[in-house]
């Protein structure tokens, strides 16, 4: 696969943006608004959805993996890597599948991705803890994912509207 310099640069910028967003959302703890542990908006998912539609599967996946790896390096927390990777990759797989249903809007794709992200994280928790105790928390997370997924879907829709006349890549 030949990758143009422009596309590579675009991927790098989007990776940086995703990293910035996931760091930024820690500054506004949503848990103050919704008093549930472990709830995140998942702002970095905006970048994933955008990349998936605009650039395709492989660039989106590369951005995701680079974001998870760099995020773990910057946070100095290797054990968090399995959480972000399992959540991120499962969300990506779900969104690739959902995107094939042309009738679904970006809201459905994003919400499905958010739900899959939480399933992946609970899976990661089950692996690290060696216990299924965390599964009891999945119902709450799934319901919250519907809202956070819709919010990120909404922002991504705004982004697409704003970018309608912007050419990102020539080929």
């Amino acid at each position, binding site marked *: 696969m030949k990758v143009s310099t422009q596309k590579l640069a675009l991927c790098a910028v989007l990776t940086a943006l995703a990293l910035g967003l996931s760091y930024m959302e820690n500054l506004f703890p949503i*848990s103050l608004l919704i*008093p*549930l*542990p*472990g709830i995140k908006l998942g702002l970095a998912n905006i970048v994933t959805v955008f990349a998936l*539609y*605009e650039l395709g599967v492989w660039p989106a996946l590369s951005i995701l993996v680079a974001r998870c790896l760099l995020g773990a390096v910057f946070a100095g927390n290797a*054990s968090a890597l399995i959480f972000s990777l399992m959540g991120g990759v499962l969300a990506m797989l779900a969104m690739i599948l*959902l995107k094939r*249903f*042309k*009738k*679904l*809007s*970006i*809201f*459905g*794709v994003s*919400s*499905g991705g958010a*739900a899959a992200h939480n399933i992946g994280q609970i899976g990661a*928790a089950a692996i*690290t*803890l*060696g*216990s*299924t*105790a*965390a*599964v*009891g*928390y*999945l*119902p*709450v997370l*799934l*319901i919250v*994912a*519907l809202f956070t997924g*819709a919010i990120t*879907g909404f922002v991504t*829709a705004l982004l*697409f*509207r704003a970018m*309608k006349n912007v*050419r*990102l*890549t*020539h*080929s």
Partner: protein
Amino acid sequence: MHTQPSVKLKPCWWDALVAAVVLLLAVGAFWGFYGFHSGSGNLTAVITHRGEEVERVALASLSAEETITVEGTYTVNIVLAPDGVSVSSATCPTQDCVHTGKITRAGQSIVCLPEQVIVQLVGAKSDVDAVLG
């Protein structure tokens, strides 16, 4: 050549179908988990630290609150009371375990990921299946 990706930007009823599937999954996970763990009466708190069970306390046997401290990289203070269990304080960065609050039903658990502590409530197995009369 730049082709605008065909992306639907407005929510439609098909999206509600995705939401319905997710809701079904949530309900299924709820029944699958709490249905399986349901045991009435005698609650027992099981505390697991890094994969090993460190404490098992029948809540009914407590007359007053009791604090159990689990120490590792971080310190987690667990308060056992006759009606439920909570984490009163922890030195971990995420504080998710403290935010979970008090758990009072069988199947519920408090998880501290940084220290790998699980506090789980299980319905104690009774010797008899049912008491009649």
